[in-house]
């Protein structure tokens, strides 16, 4: 009997999702035992042309990580959608844009202007890379950048979402176990559109730090205090993103004294991540006078980044105004 086919692919990403999958160590053998791995550039020969030659829907499961930054990413996303029965947006970039999505605060020409005119760059003719360039020997090509970074579900239909930057290895193991059980007829797939490999509540619910439902008079920053190791970081004034962020990581960062920065994306049923976090912060601010509220909020030095750090490209905003204007 032939084994079902498995694929994993990276678009505009950092490679951390692949490392997270490799970090399941021996468990990777279960993938090998139950699947025919047909396409996985990091781990094996990337037979791209073979993918093109495959029948539609012939790959059972594709884990797609990385955002859609250029026409090449877009092309492969569409190809893999056509060839895959189940397409999973794997990791923060594919789900919601992640850190590279912060580029959506700026129009693309500003990004290029910055990159090709830094303090150490010598560029008197103000050269910019061109998609097609005429060399004396012939034309050579590089992909065209899109005006804004898109999430996977902004270019193709997505079956499931697996959040995290990167997804935690124990969550990857759990999802692999589930899929194998489904193949053996022992379990059913979750409904289409579900978030998998994560919890149904918030990071705060998993966090072992004590909460005293205390209010704060000011925000501070992690480098300026020696936080109490037992107490909630937010109640100590550190802008922690735990209240709006989906559970699933075992509150990994707060457990080592660092604030949650939101890599698991919006908690279940949260329509807008930033709005939820603003509401959470509002509820712990101990002030009634507008001036006092302003003073406390001034302690958040980067509200845009604070509220949409991982989530901008996938949020209702999608991009800043100036970047949106450059989209056709």
């Amino acid at each position, binding site marked *: 009997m032939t084994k079902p086919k498995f694929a994993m*692919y990276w678009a*505009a*990403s*950092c*490679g*951390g*999702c*692949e*490392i*997270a999958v*490799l970090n399941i*160590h021996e468990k990777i053998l279960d993938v090998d035992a139950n699947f025919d791995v047909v396409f996985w*550039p*990091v*781990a*094996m*020969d*990337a*037979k*791209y042309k073979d993918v093109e030659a495959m029948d539609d829907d012939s790959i059972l499961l594709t884990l797609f990580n990385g955002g859609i*930054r*250029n026409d*090449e*990413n877009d092309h*492969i996303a569409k190809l893999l959608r056509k060839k895959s029965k189940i397409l999973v947006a794997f990791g923060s970039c594919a789900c919601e844009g992640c*850190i*590279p999505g*912060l580029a959506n*605060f*700026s129009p693309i020409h500003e*990004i*290029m202007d910055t*990159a*090709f005119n*830094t*303090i*150490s*760059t*010598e560029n008197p003719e103000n*050269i*910019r*890379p061109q998609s097609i360039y005429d*060399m*004396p*020997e012939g034309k*050579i090509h590089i992909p065209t*950048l899109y005006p804004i970074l898109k999430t996977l579900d902004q270019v193709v239909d997505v079956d499931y979402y697996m959040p995290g*930057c*990167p997804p935690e290895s124990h969550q990857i193991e759990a999802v692999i176990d589930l899929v194998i059980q489904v193949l053996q007829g022992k379990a059913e797939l979750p409904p289409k559109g579900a978030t998998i490999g994560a919890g149904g509540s918030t990071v705060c619910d998993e966090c072992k730090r004590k909460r005293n439902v205390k209010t704060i008079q000011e925000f501070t*920053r*992690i*480098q*300026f205090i020696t*936080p109490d190791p037992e107490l909630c970081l937010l109640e100590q004034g550190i802008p922690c993103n735990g209240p709006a962020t989906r559970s699933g990581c075992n509150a*990994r*960062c707060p457990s*080592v*004294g660092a604030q949650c920065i939101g890599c698991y994306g919006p908690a279940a049923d949260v329509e807008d991540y930033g709005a939820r976090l603003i509401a959470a912060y509002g509820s712990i601010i101990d002030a009634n006078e507008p001036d006092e509220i302003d003073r406390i909020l001034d302690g958040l030095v*980067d509200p845009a*980044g604070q509220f949409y750090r991982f989530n901008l490209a996938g949020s209702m905003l999608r991009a800043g105004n100036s970047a949106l204007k450059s989209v056709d």
Partner: protein
Amino acid sequence: MTRITIDPITRLEGHGKIEIFLNDEGDVANTYFQIPELRGFERFVVGRPIEEMALLTNRICGVCPEAHHMAAAKAADAVYKVNVPRTGKMLRELLYMAFYATDHTTHFYALAGPDFIVGPDAPVAERNILGVIHKVGLEIGGKVIQMRKYGHTVVEKIGGRKVHPCTSIPGGLTKGITEEDRKEIEDMGRWAIEFAQFSLKAFNDIVLGNKTYLDLILGDIYTHHTYYMGMVDENNKTNFYDGKVRVVGPDGKELVKYAPEEYTENITERVEPWTYLKFPYLKKVGWKGFVDGADSGVYCATPLSRLNAADGLATPRAQEEYDKMYSTLGGKPVHQRLVTHWARLIELLYAAERWVELATDTEITSPNFHAIPTEKPTEGVGIVEAPRGTLTHHYWTDERGVVTQANLIVGTTNNYAPISMSIHKAASSLIKKGTVVNEGLLNMVEMAFRAYDPCFGCATHSLPGQMPLEVTIHNSDGEIVKVMKQFVD
């Protein structure tokens, strides 16, 4: 004009691509190595708080996030002019040594090892990590996995996460380690030293003991005479975490030794319209094109470059291996690029030894791992040696410590020009009129850049496999004459 496109299939996923143009005589007219990615970190970190740089720039590369975490944290220390307490510095360096040992292990056994241990001309099906295991013995596979696990364990214990560590902040770290952690880390480090020695012995027996391999390593195809860069301590010994950047010439003499904040006086980046990656060169020497020699500002920043640029290594066993390498090869500097693999294993041993040194320091478990910044934040540069080259982070902030400007020169970028030159030379040497462009030849071209362990777009660094290649040969009308793949079914 005939065109050969060497396309890592990953190019289709946004990685690297080589174009080789042949002239009418069938010799190489020119080669272009293109990088098709740009994500724009230098723009979008503007407006973000300085303490987040060590978290945001991790996401440049999931293979070496530790390097960005450290360079950004050091730059943030400099922005506040805060002195990290000794324990804080040691904890960061300890995390970094465990990362180095892991990363170098992965590269040697999974990427480069197959060429040497199995052989550059071995059948494709055997030229992979499994072939290495077959040749060296089954237990080595287990050891490689064990080394990776130990490394990740230490990164997680100190950095809080296996991928994208989160504990380094301006002035130090958010947490220290307990005596129980320390003992475990020490034991793993001692195992790592043995593993490194085992690896060097395997290299010695299998590679250096084989005349064919030795001829290949020392031959002209993979040789370039350029400047070499590497960070050194106050005794001019290699240091990965801290120190000054030293550059030596093709003759091995010191050109300059600069402090992190002096990098703009020493490094300039050139823009070309056919690729998204810039070409750094030595400002004082100047850009003369993709050429060798003391008049060309092209420099190299790799494990071999670091050893060439230093006077030695600061740990005893690694120093012994350092001396042995240079005496075997007839002195410093060594210009043969394939020797980089040997240098990488010597660095692996140094990282393991340094790991144990730090883990056995009496102050490593001290609670004094963070100093609260008190100065007004302004501007700062942080430099570490990433496994793939000198990594520079530079930030300017306003008085609230919010970033107003950023500049990053990442590891592999340093080597963009030399890699391009190595590809050009290997292609020109190997592809001549009447040559049959076969799989073995492709692997020889691939070996030219594999020595640098390139990590373009932080993605082409393939982990357990080799970088797949596809060669398409076009005739002068652009029609495809022949397609070959590096890996066949």
